[in-house]
């Protein structure tokens, strides 16, 4: 295997990894709100991708231009959903919350099936099929933009969570919600906003990476799986950990497929997950 090919596969893997990390970031945020594991995560993103499709078909709006719109739309969706649906269920326990998100998987998949049908669809964007070529490397622009955005968003999220009052409130609720209430923190509102931002980020993510994928109503599950793996490897609640884990998964998957074929490549994320759980149960950057 030539060095050129190895380099190309590594760069490709890094970019895919950044996309994985981007999806895991919002899952990490949602998890930091009352420990909710969102199994409908990938499905919300699929919904955003179909949203980008609808905006493109109706108004010829490019997915990249639609990204901020989808962010706000999904923020509202998340905010309202938390208030009306998630919060009452979550009050009955984290398990009930997880079951609710499992239910949302079916609701969303069938909704997409009903509205858009079961066929494969794609959304053309200004960046579709454009490559940045820096010999010997070829980098698809959609992946490049997605991965840069992942890094920027991770940094913003880190700053917001670690350096602002809002972020401290979110963390306070996670660490001790009774004590947080005693500080006069409006737990329900802070959580609804954090959940809204998490879902909003998925709206943004869906629009940014739609050029890279083919749309089908059941596509969400694969993304949920990869986000879960990345989040657990990185350490629950750690944004830096998700970024690093995304990169590790992306590169190892890519190099594994290149060197040993696609089946080995596809097994690698699970193998890494098992190793991490064995030797660092709290993840690479997780706190005890």
């Amino acid at each position: 295997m030539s060095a050129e090919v190895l380099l190309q596969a590594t760069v490709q893997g890094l970019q895919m990894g950044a996309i994985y990390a981007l999806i895991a970031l919002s899952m990490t945020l949602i998890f930091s709100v009352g420990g909710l594991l969102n199994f409908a995560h990938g499905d919300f993103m699929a919904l955003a991708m179909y949203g980008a499709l609808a905006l493109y078909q109706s108004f010829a709006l490019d997915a990249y231009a639609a990204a901020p719109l989808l962010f706000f739309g999904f923020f509202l969706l998340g905010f309202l959903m938390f208030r009306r649906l998630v919060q009452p269920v979550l009050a009955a326990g984290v398990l009930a919350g997880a079951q609710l998100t499992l239910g949302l998987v079916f609701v969303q998949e069938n909704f997409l099936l009903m509205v858009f049908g079961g066929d494969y669809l794609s959304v053309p964007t200004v960046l579709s099929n454009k490559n940045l070529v820096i010999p010997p490397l070829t980098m698809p622009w959609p992946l490049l933009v997605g991965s840069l955005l992942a890094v920027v968003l991770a940094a913003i999220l880190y700053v917001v969570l670690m350096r602002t009052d809002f972020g401290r409130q979110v963390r306070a609720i996670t660490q001790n919600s009774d004590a947080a209430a005693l500080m006069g923190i409006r737990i329900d509102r802070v959580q609804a906003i954090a959940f809204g931002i998490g879902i909003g980020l998925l709206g943004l993510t869906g629009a940014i990476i739609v050029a890279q994928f083919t749309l089908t109503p059941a596509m969400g599950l694969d993304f949920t799986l990869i986000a879960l793996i990345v989040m657990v490897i990185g350490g629950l609640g750690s944004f830096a950990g998700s970024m690093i884990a995304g990169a590790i998964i992306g590169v190892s998957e890519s190099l594994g497929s290149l060197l040993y074929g696609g089946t080995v490549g596809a097994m690698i994320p699970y193998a890494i997950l098992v190793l991490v759980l064995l030797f660092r149960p709290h993840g690479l950057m997780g706190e005890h």
Partner: protein
Amino acid sequence: MLEISGLVSGYGRISILHGIDLRVEKGELVALVGVNGAGKTTLMKTIAGLIRPTAGRIAFEGSEIAGEGAERAVAAGIALVPEGRMVFPRMTVWENLMLGGVHPRARPYREATLERIFDLFPRLAERRDQKAATMSGGEQQMLVIGRGLMAQPKLLILDEPSLGLSPLLVQETYGALRKLNADGLTILLAEQNVKLSLAVSNRGYVIENGKIVLTGASSDLARDPATRKAYLGRL
């Protein structure tokens, strides 16, 4: 300042408080004493809005706050320093204190209050950037008191501040409370340590099985044979 009458409260369908009457006047340091399980913590939590009472009234500076929630209590000027040192373990001392003053009522004075708290507890200033979980029990107790003060309370409620502290640290903590009270802060103190709490307070209440059984000036209570027999004798 605080006027409680006929308060019935508890968890779910189980009532723990069966008609509590209690008053705290501005500038007082009032002690609430009783054994473990008498209902002290339930009463504190109900005043702070964490538990919704089933009957009775809680008036604070003339307005009703019973069952209005913790945010309302903080907004009115009540801060509870909970039992068991509920710090935010994975945050630094500074972050814990900042959260204490996160309510809009307290936020504008945060920097100034922080200075005062660092004066009161110099140890917290030294540990400013340390994670709360890594500190000793006494330091954590200082932290939660400091955090409570960050909310700019008119009434500071403390639940068992001496629990699990060494005698030296207990002295230090009580010294700080006395100083705060002398500076004009109204304090309601719940304690199992009857001797100590009656020594620092102006007035006291004795709670037993969710009912107030005795009340009066702390010095009288400390001399009262009933109190002596029931609590002090055991010390």
